Every structure is written in C-alpha cells, then in structure tokens.
C-alpha cells in the first residue's frame, strides 16, 4: 500500500514553507504530504483549536481568530496575515472553508504567494453552477434536462422541465440548498425554502431546476492538470451512498461502470476540463441513470474529501502532486497513463446519529480506537478524550481499505469496522457496520436512495443485542468499585503496565 510519491531525497522541495488554511483531518493530511516533500508545514488555528491534532502535525501554527469560522478559517485577511508572519511561500486551502472562493485565490496571488489550486478565474466560473451547466452542454457533454436560467417565481418554467424536479442553488455544491419537488402544489413553498437555504449557505439565493434522475448513481472522475496544459485522468469514484445529498461512502472502481461507460465518463470529464482555464486537482461529477446514461452535475477544482480512494487504487499521492503542480512541475507521461489496481472503499465517520435521521451529535469523545493492519488507512482529525467542537464539520475520521477485488475489500472493511471503537457520542459507525452486510451494497447494485429506501432509521434492536447490552451493563455495574475514582491506579512501572495491557488484549 505504499503511495508512489516519487519524492526521492535528492529532489529539491518545491517550497520551504507552506501554510495550510484549514483544520481537522484534511489539515493533518496536507501536513503529512508536506513532510514527505521536505516542506515545513504551517498550521493555522482558532482559539479553540490551539491544541488540536492538526496544530501538532505542523512545525508552527498561527492564531487566526476566535472559534466562529467566519472570523477565523473563513477570514481571508487573517489567513494572509498568518502566511506573511510565517513566511509561507504557498497556501493549501484543503476542502471546504475558502478552497473554492475566487477572491481568496486572487488575494493569495496578489500577496505574492502560490495558491495550491486552480487559477482564480476557474473558481469564479465554476462557482456558478448554472453557467457551468451551460458551458458543459456547449462542450458536448450531456447535462440533466432542466432550466437554463434561474428560477424566481415562474412556476411554468419549472413545470416545463417535467416533475419531479430537483431545485439546486446556483452558488451551491456539496448537496446544500437542494430540494426535491414532486408536485406543482409543493413547488412555491419548496422554492421559497430552497432560496432561503441557498442564501443562508452561500449568500446567494439563485436557484435552478433539474429533472430528477432516479434511480441514479453518483460517479465522479478525478483529474489532475499541470500549468503546461497536460491532463491526467485518474479513474472514477462511486459516491452513491448519501444522506442529505452528501456523500458517506465512496469506492473505486464503481461497480456500476463498465468499460464503455468508463470511457464515456472520462471523455466527458476531459471535455468539461477544456471549458475552464484549469490546473491542479479537480473532480467532474456525474449522475448515471439506470440505463447507463451519464449527465454532468458539477466540477470541483479542489481536493475532494474522498481523494484517498483514488490514491489507493493508483498509488499516487494526490496532495503531493497538487503541491508539485502548483510549483510548476509538469505531470510526467507515466502518471497520465497511470493504471489502477485493486479496489478501494472509504467510509466517513461522522458525529451523527444514523438512528435519528443522521442529525449531528455533540459532546466529548471518550474511547477512541482506530483500526489498523493490512490494507487499512485512517485519516483522522481528532482523537479520544477531547471535546468535539460544534462550530465545525462533524467529520471525525475517514476509514479507507484497499484489497485485490471488491469482495476482499468488503471483508477488510467489515473487519476494520469491528476494530473501530468511538465512545462518548453516537456516530454513524452503526450505519456503516450495517451497510457492509446489506445485500444491495454487497452486490454493488445500489443507488443514491439506499439510505432512504433500505436503512430508514436503522433496524430495530434485536432481542439478542438487547440481552448482550444488558449483560455488559450489569457486569460493569457489579464490577465497578463503589468509589468515584474513574481511573485505575497507575502500574508500578511502564513495563508492568505494558505487560498488563498485553495480557488484556490476548
């Protein structure tokens, strides 16, 4: 599972210092790539993150403001100040926060710092999903039938698309501001809600309508471009397991894609990439319907949360390549024809309650045991015995597995999920453990409705599970000394402690 990074010791680092304008697992991930490239990683932190994992992964960290993201991780001025103070030559935005804000990319470049991402103009043009739809169609890429213009209160315009429709935010992405509408009666209120949500999330209430594609698979193609006009197509990822139109599980290759469809998707992705002045990592997202037709959804010119899936099947370090490409390095020929091997699956561990509609949970994380062993990778941004900050994304960790084929990858994922233990709050781990035994997921024949149609709020607790839980709690109570000391007395020596732990593990 070693990543092919081509970072021999003789290679000169592309930068001396790089500032990571993010937090959590992705900031840790970028810091790791920096270290392997010989670059000194600089973190940024809000007041509540001063001791966070991502801060400790870096060589130094700059305070950028209070807990509220708007005044820290979303503050262009604070981040540029931090970059200047620390002498960073480049800024990696990660995903989320400022990663797709053209004005941020512009400000970074104006400050004489390299932005690890696409040219600002690409961000500006792709940020408008409605405009991106029009340019993709002009490039000969199929798009979902829908409105060519924004919908305000012209209901006939939407009706002409054909119900049911999906309302989407033009400034959106990531599933936010999306509303499904089945009947004309529901349309006015759905439109109002979608516009309000879009405005709250993006500061822009522009909404358009697309015909609902159902059943649908969500399949995306990973691209990497350099500053010399070269483009590498690095395979597809299937991201059809979603809640609230947001991804929970990703795999590559897609079980729904055969060779002809794969070629068609790659061809469409290349065409979309020609519509924007683009370099760096990008993802072109498609819906695939039951007949194997594909439709362009959107293009994201940043690192995706699920990039690790592609790294496992290609052996490439995408973050390292983002940084090298940003420094002007050309993409070598062998990378452009990189073959993909085996099967990779990622599951996202969120602080969410899958038994109650995946609502976010909060609190203090207690037990924290991550899986390990052959073919397992964990990208975590937090650790045990810490408070989960309600101000930020509830992603706790990404668990990735790789194996020769899909059945072996599923077996490995099942094993890894049994090793995973997160205490203190409800996570989606219960759903993920159910998923790896679900007939539809195991067969590979599933679509974006899997959670609604098969999970609901999870199966009821069985009598056997209740009896086991009862046994565990009763044993714990009878076992517990009636004192208030929560921790066992320290062992006499570290060796004795290690031996005791070893004995318990057996």
């Amino acid at each position, binding site marked *: 599972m070693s990543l092919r990074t081509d970072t021999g010791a003789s290679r000169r680092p592309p930068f001396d210092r790089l500032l990571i304008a993010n937090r959590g697992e992705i900031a840790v991930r970028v810091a790791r790539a920096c270290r392997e490239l010989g670059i000194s990683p600089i973190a940024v932190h809000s007041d509540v993150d001063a001791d966070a994992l991502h801060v400790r992964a870096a060589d130094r960290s700059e305070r950028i403001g209070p807990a509220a993201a708007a005044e820290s991780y979303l503050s262009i001025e604070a981040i540029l100040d931090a970059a200047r103070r620390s002498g960073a030559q480049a800024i990696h935005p990660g995903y989320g926060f400022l990663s797709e804000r053209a004005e941020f990319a512009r400000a970074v470049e104006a400050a004489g710092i390299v932005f690890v991402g696409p040219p600002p103009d690409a961000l500006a043009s792709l940020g408008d999903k409605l405009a991106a739809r029009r340019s993709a169609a002009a490039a000969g890429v199929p798009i979902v039938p829908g409105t060519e213009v924004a919908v305000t209160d012209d209901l006939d315009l939407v009706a002409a698309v054909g119900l049911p429709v999906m309302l989407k935010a033009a400034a959106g992405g990531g599933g936010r501001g999306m509303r499904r509408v089945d009947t004309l009666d529901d349309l006015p209120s759905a439109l109002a809600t979608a516009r309000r949500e879009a405005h709250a999330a993006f500061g822009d209430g522009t909404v358009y309508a697309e015909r609902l594609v159902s059943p649908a698979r969500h399949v995306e193609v990973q691209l990497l471009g350099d500053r010399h006009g070269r483009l590498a197509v690095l395979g597809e990822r299937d991201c059809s397991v979603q809640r609230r139109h947001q991804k929970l599980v990703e795999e590559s290759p897609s079980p729904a894609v055969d060779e002809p469809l794969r070629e068609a998707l790659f061809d469409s992705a290349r065409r979309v990439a020609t519509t924007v002045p683009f370099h760096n990592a990008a993802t072109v997202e498609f819906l695939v319907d039951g007949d194997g037709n594909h439709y362009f959804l959107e293009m994201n010119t940043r690192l995706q949360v699920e990039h690790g899936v592609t790294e496992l099947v290609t052996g490439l370090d995408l973050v390292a390549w983002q940084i090298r490409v940003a420094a002007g390095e050309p993409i070598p020929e062998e990378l452009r024809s990189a073959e993909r091997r085996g099967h990779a699956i990622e599951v996202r561990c969120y602080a969410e309650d899958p038994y109650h509609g995946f609502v976010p949970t*909060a609190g203090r994380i207690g037990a924290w045991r991550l899986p390990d062993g052959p073919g397992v990778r964990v990208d975590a941004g937090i650790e045990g015995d810490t408070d989960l900050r309600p101000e930020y994304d509830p992603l706790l960790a990404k668990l990735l597995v790789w194996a020769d084929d899909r059945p072996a990858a599923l077996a490995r994922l099942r094993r890894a999920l049994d090793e995973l233990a997160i205490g203190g709050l409800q996570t989606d781990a219960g759903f993920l453990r159910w998923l790896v035994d679900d007939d539809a997921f195991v067969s590979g024949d599933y679509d974006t409705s899997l959670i609604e149609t098969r999970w609901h709020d999870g199966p009821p607790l069985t009598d056997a599970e209740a009896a086991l839980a009862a046994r565990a709690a009763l044993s714990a109570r009878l076992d517990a000394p009636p004192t208030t000391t929560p921790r066992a007395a320290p062992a006499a020596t570290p060796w004795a402690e290690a031996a005791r732990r070893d004995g318990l593990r057996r």
Partner: protein
Amino acid sequence: MTDHDVRVGDEAVVPADGWTLAWDDRASGLARLIGPGRSIPVIVEGEGTDWTVTLHGRRIPVTVRSWRERILADAETEARTHSGPTTVAATLPGLVVAVAVAAGEEVAAGTSLLTIEAMKMQNEVRAPRDGTVLEVTVATGDTVATGAPLVRLA
C-alpha cells in the same frame, strides 16, 4: 435470576447468559463481551444506575437498578408527572434562525415554536403539547447545544 432490574430503554431485559465482560481499558470503557466461542467488542460507559453500551456502533441506553432503587425512582416519577411546566430543549446543536412565539402566547401541540439551522438544514421545533408559553430562553442568532432549554410551556 439477578437481584437487579435491567432495562434497555423502557423494556425489562434478561441479560444474556454465558457471557462475561473483559475490560481492555476501564477508564474509557473499551471492553469485550466473551461468550461461547466468540468475543464481541463493546464500549461500556456510565456509573451507578445509568449505562450506555455501544454494540456494533449503536449506543444502547441501559438502566441497572437494584429493586430498592427501582421502587424509589418509580415513586419520584409519579410525583413529577402530576403537573408543572415543560421545558422544550434542543434535540440537536445549531443556530436559532427564527423564533415564532413569544411569552404569553397560547400554543397547540404541534405548533412551530422556533427554527434551528444545523448542517444548513432548517429544523422546526414544535410544541410537544398544548400550553401557554411562559418564557422563550433563546433569541434569533443564538447558537444552542443539544439539551439547551429553548421554551418553557405552562
């Protein structure tokens, strides 16, 4: 037969026979249930009567009471349910984006009291029963944690 009343949620449950609990780390609750020919990883958190057992990723609330504790608790519940104001609390953390009621207003069960935005989704908080609003303890723009009191109903 045990001399304890063990409940999962509200339901009395007979603890599984032939299984014992082995701690991996008592402080954090990491443990295994060891049964006939197999072991299952669990997390056991809590103390006294209130426990949470995480099994296959699901947090299961378990109450373990001696019969004496059970009788006392039942008597207390009985006394509490007779009357008194109800506090409507946040079931998820988020941002209060709209407040639809004010103190003194009569509301019917199901009336929308306020809207909390979490994960960019708007979630309406509704009145659990008919009543009069005694107090609204939050305002638009407040960030609330799970369990935070929002509205008191008489």
